[in-house]
């Protein structure tokens, strides 16, 4: 118990004294995850919205694959990206391995199925519910997917937040492709794993607290978004549905 108390006290000191090593790791983590989420969302939102509206042969197979990718282990993603970026791999000429770019790419690959699958579900539900009314106005599938995604923007914001949560909390992929190099590719999750194995529990706990705070902040954002949305839509409006339900 004394060890735990000492560890917690030292961790809080590191946080409050703005320990440069700790905060550089936090900043790097946020930077990598924000970029990865942005990259994954720019592709996943478009792809998901499109899949939510169009019908074509093989769509069911594609959706099954997509939903399977939701459970993709992050170390497998790390391994695949490693193989792509290794010197003999197809993207080896980029020289990205063990860099922040490789970590961004790995997290983006990890998060892309999450964004695509949740967006697809959200837009497809909207299409079933009222896509017909947009078709009645002459909206073709592509335009309909854009309009429905826009109409579901608050639910999709939640998808974005969930994707960011998945990105910032993963450890396997960034460890494999980033190498956990101190001052260069070390992020919160890889640092926690390393410091725990080394026995430097205060730094690991301090990073853990920051990570938990980020997750807590994300949940607060979702909550605030839900309340704001309900207020905007009025009491008599449709009940909150989709991802926010």
């Amino acid at each position, binding site marked *: 118990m004394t060890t735990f108390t000492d560890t917690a006290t030292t961790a809080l000191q590191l946080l409050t004294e703005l320990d440069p090593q700790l905060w550089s790791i936090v900043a790097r983590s946020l930077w990598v995850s924000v970029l990865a989420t942005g990259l994954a969302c720019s592709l996943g939102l478009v792809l998901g919205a499109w899949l939510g509206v169009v019908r074509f042969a093989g769509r069911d197979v594609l959706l099954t694959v997509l939903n399977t990718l939701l459970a993709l282990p992050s170390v497998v993603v790390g391994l695949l990206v490693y193989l792509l970026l290794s010197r003999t791999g197809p993207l080896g000429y980029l020289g990205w391995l063990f860099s922040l770019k490789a970590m961004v790419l790995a997290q983006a690959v990890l998060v892309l199925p999450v964004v695509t699958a949740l967006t697809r579900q959200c837009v497809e539900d909207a299409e079933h*519910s*009222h896509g*017909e*009314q*947009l*078709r*009645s*106005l*002459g*909206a073709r599938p592509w*335009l309909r997917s854009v*309009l429905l995604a*826009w*109409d579901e*923007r*608050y639910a999709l914001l939640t998808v974005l937040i969930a994707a960011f949560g998945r990105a910032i909390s993963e450890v396997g992929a960034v460890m494999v492709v980033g190498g956990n190099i101190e001052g260069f590719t070390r992020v919160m999750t890889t640092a926690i794993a390393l410091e725990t194995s080394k026995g430097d529990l205060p730094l690991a706990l301090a990073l853990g607290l920051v990570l938990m705070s980020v997750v807590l902040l994300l949940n607060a954002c979702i909550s605030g978004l839900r309340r704001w949305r309900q207020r*905007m*839509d*009025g009491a*008599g*409006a*449709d009940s909150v549905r989709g991802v926010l339900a």
Partner: protein
Amino acid sequence: MSAALTLRDVSVQFDTHMALHGVNLQLHAGERVALVGANGSGKSTLLRVAHGLLPVSGGHVSVAAEVHQAMVFQRPHMLRTSVLRFVVWGLWLQGTPWREAHTKAMHALERVGLQDMAERSARTLSGGQQQRLALARAWALQPNFVLLDEPTSSLDPHAKREVERLLTDWVASTQVSLLFSSHNLGQVKRLATRVIYLEAGRVLADLPVDAFFNQPLGDSHPEAHLFLKGELG
């Protein structure tokens, strides 16, 4: 006179269920046709086929080149936008430039008495106001053929009267053709010039409104007779 809308031997099948079965129909400009029948008789399916929202399993649907349709749904979905933009989007989707659409949309809102709510969120409107907004959007599109799927069924009596009044004014001012479904036989009497009775996806009676309500149907159209007897007591 050539027909504005023609359905020739139209069938629609959902899996094993025949929603429409060999429907033959011609609608001419200026007609106001009511579709009546029990739930599941095929009224909504027929409206969707006529509007091109549902493909037919058999037969043929043809719409005259000069016909410009708009449809009003039983429960109009309110886009997450303002009352004004709800109408503007509809116009924009049909090719009206954004600025021109604003002017037309305001005019349409004035027509249904929602101009003071133009900046409000469309989702905060009451059921009756939402249906008036849906009418405003349809009206703004300046169609000459309007399809309405039970436009007042989910409204309270006051909102029902208001929507019906707007429809009556619309018909009187533009001679627009109507094809609408309704369970409200009083409304059918007031609005329609012709009544089509559907049962299990088949057209079993197609009569002028006077004949449908005032002539004995027992021998010529026994199913419609039973329906009317049940509905009117």
